[in-house]
């Protein structure tokens, strides 16, 4: 019997109300994150992956509505507000654009100290400062004293993202949600930040939910990969398994999109077609319109997640019973 | 085509809200009255200030004289109605001249930059360093009273707003990839200005200018009120209020109704501007915010 997962998402559905109608951004998503595990949520922009992250962190925009499902974190359902306040400090989040995600009118020190004060109930300024300095040093920032006094616009993107990570980890959370943490950074910095995250995960016993559009990054991070398409989870497997043996046609397509130097491809591939309108998601498989292997059944009936191998599930009719 | 689509969307947005519809009706009503006033007024001679009827002075609003009569027995309603024509002339004149000065300055400064551009923008800044209306006051005092002088005075204090607006627009558009490709393709400077810069930089400016007509009416009335606007007996709204002020204890209506006319008309323009600001076009919103003084 496995131990209870740290976080369990059950049938989560989220909608955005906009002027043109209701966008069903996430539909019936379910997955677990175990303690000390890295889970990568992979998908194109608009696939609902960030929405899930925001929902777990409790920072959905005001026009978002959770239509149904559960977010169970350490036996509390986070959709319930009271439970949410109890476990606030256990879940922290970092974002794509570090320059936009820190208030430009406040110093790093002020923001860190507010976060620390709120969650750790420490009020001694010296203790707060010590902790903040320690964290800044831990994420590899030089001259942390000066860093505390700096405004965001005085720092580079990479330094800022490290400071954001330090802020998030200063309250010793159990789960870190990293929403495309390297997308806005240079390639060399990307690797550094990812490595830092891996290091921190081991040191702090963190679980990490890494949200990315880049399957390559997800593969490097190890752990489990969950592939999302248009608000639905289509495949889930350990990273080795997924890379070696992708099952869902969408995942296969994604893998072919990654530029590789070892294989002699003369042309970059892409997946033809466009995403369906999420105000009116199709009743059948969401990938039907772009799938090269689609069969008649795919148009009408939505495939459910089936376990094909151990630790490898997929939502595709090609693998449902009777087909294989 | 895209512009047409945008216009249609904006119009849709305006009409959907009842208040915006009212504003639209006010503005159209004002323009129509402005054009047709000489044919609409019940007492044309009173309106132009040619007739006196001292026995009938200070008569309160009645069916015969909707807004009452003034100290010389003239029909206030007629004078207010004709006042719309003068306000319209002033507004169109001020905005028109301001655009004629402001657009070339802004386009030249924004597109060519360099020393000339820098100089032009410094001059613009100098004019903007005056509090609004102050420059118009001293100009009007220098030129003397009169409709044309009033228009010139206001326009000269007004153009720097547009030149700065056009400057910013031009500067942004100048660095757009499509302008670069036009340059590489060997289009002449004139054609680039004509085909790319001017249409894109001017649309928001012209819309802004049309909506500024309310402010122009308001400020012109203020100048007339403190004695540097039009000459009596011109039935300009600000001057009418000023004339009514002298006998406000006896007959409140003489000052009240022209002021109300200003209020309603300017509110119409400003509500329309507000509705546009709420519409989604960020480019337009940016320029309007700038007009309000927010630095981007």
């Amino acid at each position, binding site marked *: 019997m496995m131990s209870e997962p740290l976080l369990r998402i059950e049938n989560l559905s989220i909608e955005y109300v906009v002027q043109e109608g209701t966008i069903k951004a996430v539909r019936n998503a379910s997955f677990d994150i175990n303690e000390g595990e890295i889970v990568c949520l992979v998908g194109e922009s608009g696939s609902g992956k960030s929405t899930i992250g925001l929902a777990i962190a409790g920072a959905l925009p005001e026009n978002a509505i959770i239509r149904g499902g559960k977010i169970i974190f350490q036996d509390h359902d986070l959709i319930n507000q009271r439970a949410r306040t109890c476990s606030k400090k256990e879940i922290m989040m970092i*974002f794509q654009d570090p320059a*936009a995600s820190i208030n430009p009118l406040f110093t790093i020190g002020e923001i860190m100290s507010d976060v620390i004060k709120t969650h750790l109930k420490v009020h001694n300024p010296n203790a707060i400062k010590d902790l903040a300095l320690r964290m800044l040093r831990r994420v590899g920032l030089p001259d942390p004293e000066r860093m505390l006094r700096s405004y965001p616009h005085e720092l580079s993107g990479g330094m800022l993202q490290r400071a954001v990570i330090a802020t998030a980890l200063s309250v010793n959370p159990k789960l870190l949600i990293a929403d495309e943490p390297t997308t806005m950074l240079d390639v060399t910095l990307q690797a550094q930040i990812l490595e830092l995250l891996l290091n921190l995960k081991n040191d702090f016993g963190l679980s990490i939910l890494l949200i990315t559009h880049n399957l390559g990054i997800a593969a490097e991070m190890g752990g489990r990969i969950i592939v999302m398409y248009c608000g639905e989870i289509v495949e889930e497997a350990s990273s080795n398994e997924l890379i070696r043996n992708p099952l869902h046609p969408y995942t296969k397509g994604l893998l072919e999109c990654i530029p590789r130097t070892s294989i002699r491809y003369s042309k970059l591939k892409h997946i033809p077609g466009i995403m369906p309108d999420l105000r009116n998601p199709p009743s059948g498989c969401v990938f039907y319109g772009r799938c090269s292997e689609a069969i008649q059944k795919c148009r009408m009936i939505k495939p459910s997640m089936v376990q094909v191998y151990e630790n490898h599930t997929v939502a595709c009719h090609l693998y449902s019973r009777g087909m294989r | 085509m895209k512009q047409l689509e945008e216009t249609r969307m904006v119009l849709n947005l305006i009409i959907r809200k009842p208040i915006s519809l009212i504003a639209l009706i006010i503005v159209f009503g004002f323009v129509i009255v402005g054009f047709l006033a000489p044919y609409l007024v019940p007492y044309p001679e009173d309106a132009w200030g040619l007739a006196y009827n001292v026995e009938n002075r200070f008569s309160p609003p009645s069916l015969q004289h909707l807004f009452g009569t003034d100290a010389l027995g003239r029909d206030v309603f007629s004078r207010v109605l004709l006042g719309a024509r003068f306000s319209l002339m002033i507004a169109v004149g001020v905005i028109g001249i301001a655009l004629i000065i402001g657009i070339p300055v802004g386009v030249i400064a924004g597109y060519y930059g360099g020393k000339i551009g820098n100089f032009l923008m410094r001059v613009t800044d*100098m004019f903007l360093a*005056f509090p609004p209306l102050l420059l118009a006051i001293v100009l009007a005092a220098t030129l003397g009273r009169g409709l044309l002088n009033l228009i010139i005075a206001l326009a000269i204090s007004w153009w720097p707003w547009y030149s700065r607006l056009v400057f910013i627009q031009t500067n942004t558009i100048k660095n757009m990839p499509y302008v670069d490709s036009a340059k590489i393709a060997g289009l002449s400077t004139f054609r680039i200005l004509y085909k790319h810069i001017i249409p894109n930089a001017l649309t928001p400016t012209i819309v802004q200018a049309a909506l500024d007509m309310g402010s122009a009416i308001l400020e012109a009335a203020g100048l007339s009120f403190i004695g540097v606007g039009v000459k009596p007996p011109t039935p300009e709204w600000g001057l009418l209020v000023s004339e009514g002020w002298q006998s406000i204890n006896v007959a409140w209506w003489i000052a009240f109704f022209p002021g109300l006319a200003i209020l309603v008309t300017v509110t119409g323009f400003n509500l329309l501007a507000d509705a546009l600001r709420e519409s989604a076009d960020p480019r337009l919103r940016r320029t309007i915010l700038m007009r309000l003084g927010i630095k981007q």
Partner: protein
Amino acid sequence: MPVSKEYLFKRTILLAFVVFGVIFITFMITRVIPARPELLWAGPHATLEQIEEARRQLHLDKHIYLQFILYLQDLIFGNWGISWRTRAPILSDIISSLTATLELIIIAFIIAVMAGIPLGILAAIKKHGWIDDVIRVLTVIGASVPVFWLALIVQLAFGMWLGLLPSAKRVDEWVVITTSFKPITGFYIIDSMLQGNLLVLVNSIQHIILPAIVLAAYPLCLSARMTRAVMIEVLSEQHVRSLMAWGLPQRLIFFKYCLKNTLAPLIASLGLSFGYMIIGAFMVELVFVWPGIGFYAAMSLLSFDYPAVTGCVIIVAIFYCIINTLIDIIHSVIDPRVKL
């Protein structure tokens, strides 16, 4: 964070340039554009000798460059000319009326900010609800009222018809005489408080209410609309979302973080509000017989007292430039990104 000396230095240099430019433009308008400036200067009923005297005073017999230098010299040494309406030196006229205007503007400013900013915040929080709609429409109407007309109506309604409040002058004569009140700073509210003169204090507050409210109307609506627009934008920004995700309490996010983000651009825009109020004071003071610089300027305009008008314009313009510089400095303290 203290302002850097470098920034202050640069800002002061810029101020000097702007003031120079303002004086130059005023010179062009008052001395170069008119065909015969001395006629304007001497007034409509001047004798030939007076016109000749004006010519000499304006150095019109000299070369134009020299005229400008002499003009600057006169400005610096306080030779601003004699008002032929009050028969007094213009600079002393202006200085003696400055505090009355400042008192009025400051009170109006406080009213505008104290009411405008909360209204704007309220509208932003209730975005697109009926409260927002009501506030928006009301503030648009408020920004469209001709201030001189509003002054007349308020004076008529509250002063004359209802008789609730005095509607002219800063203080009643009899109060000054019976309590032998002697202004020191010229701010009657402060003076009477310092002297413990309750009667004058109450009386002068009663007098300032109506004109201050009328003067505050426009900047109040302006600041409410600005606050709403900026607040809505701030609330939608990513850094607010991150603070939420980091679990900071709503109240802290709103009142510490968002408010500062909102105030920064708002303060930058206060200069314009101030400008509108100075000009608004011309009309409001005229109607309420408030003996400030606005009243002085408006009376000078109405009686074609050109030297006095010119003096007022220069003083007001320079004052406005200084205010804007101060506001920019304050803005740079709040928003560290602001650089020259």
